């Protein structure tokens, strides 16, 4: 321990017996050192005082409650800050669910989206596509897969498009739960859909859901082989 470190250890009450007495004598005999001691005591007091109000803040009712994965939040922040507006846009976007369910949520065994215990999940051709199809698959098929990525909870999500519209589904309890569904814009119908890029509402929803970067082809294939876990 250097003299300086010993001096601080004494100041912090870390020295006992002879060691403490030795530094105390040194300080008493040296006005400059005594002034140092006062300055450092004052500094510690002011520093602690600055943080004191923090201790008075109320403790939340539920500690550690929200299911947020810090690592994922961190990645997300590092890559691209997400504004509150985008989050709200995403919430608003999910409200668009009702619009399209009339066409997609038909009854019958071939319906691509079914209601299970009150949540919408992919079924039939849509489930099949989400389970097996890679983004590189030919776009001529009924369902085309867009992006694959993880959300802030670490769940895998995939965006998709079909004749009726586009949407986002994420893994939950072994299903592809529908997070958002957007009806094909009637003003620009049909075949131009793919060429004109994704629905801006879907883009907003993805933006608000994604944590980190979308998967590349290799990561997508690995996720498929891993059973989308």
């Amino acid at each position, binding site marked *: 321990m250097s003299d300086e470190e010993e001096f601080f250890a004494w100041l912090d009450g870390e020295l006992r017996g002879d060691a403490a007495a030795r530094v105390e004598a040194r300080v008493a005999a040296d006005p400059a050192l005594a002034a140092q001691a006062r300055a450092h005591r004052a500094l510690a007091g*002011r520093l602690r005082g600055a943080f004191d109000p923090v201790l008075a803040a109320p403790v939340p009712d539920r500690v*550690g409650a929200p299911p947020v994965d*810090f*690592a994922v939040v961190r990645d997300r922040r590092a890559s691209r800050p997400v504004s509150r507006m985008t989050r709200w846009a995403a919430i608003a976007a999910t409200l668009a669910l009702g619009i399209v369910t009339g066409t997609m949520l038909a009854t019958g065994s071939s319906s691509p989206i079914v209601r299970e215990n009150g949540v919408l999940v992919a079924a039939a051709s849509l489930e099949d596509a989400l389970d097996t199809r890679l983004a590189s698959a030919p776009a001529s098929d009924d369902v085309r897969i867009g992006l694959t990525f993880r959300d802030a909870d670490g769940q895998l999500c995939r965006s998709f498009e079909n004749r009726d519209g586009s949407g986002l589904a994420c893994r939950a309890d072994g299903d592809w739960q529908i997070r958002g569904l957007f009806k094909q814009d009637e003003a620009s119908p049909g075949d131009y859909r793919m060429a004109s890029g994704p629905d801006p509402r879907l883009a907003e929803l993805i933006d608000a859901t994604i944590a980190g970067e979308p998967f590349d082809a290799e990561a997508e294939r690995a996720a498929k082989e891993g059973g989308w876990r």
Partner: protein
Amino acid sequence: MGSQIEIERELRAHWPRLRRFALALSRDAADADDLVQATAERIIRSVGQWQAGSRFDSWMFRIARNLWIDTMRARGRQNARFAPEEDGEQIGFDPRPGTEAAIDLGTAMAAMQRLPEEQREVIALILIDGLGYRETADTLGLPIGTISSRLARGRTALLAMLGEKECGGE
């Protein structure tokens, strides 16, 4: 092994200190809140790792500190080192020696940000929280000699930043 209820009770009891520690490490309140939340969740998930009766605070600080290091690594060292200096100036930090008034939280945080990460955590635990050297060494998993040398360097730098009212300056 601690139960979920015990862990939550400990966490509630130590919440203000966790929050203070997070603020001492972070550049702003949003970062600190994220860190507190992440630490709380990690603690709740790690219920099996804490022995009831052992020191909760050291365990909690260690988790928070490790999460913080992960965050800093992800952001990149450059960012962590240089951005805070600007922040310090932006909030009206007064570097003149002899500033005698009590310092506010923003000024204290800005000064802390100017310290290297490894000195900041030691200052946060010893000078702000009041942990002993041995407890700090155990919490951070460092030799006690490393603690005392980082502490010496950190507090000397802080004194230069926050005023040397008893020293008569240079």
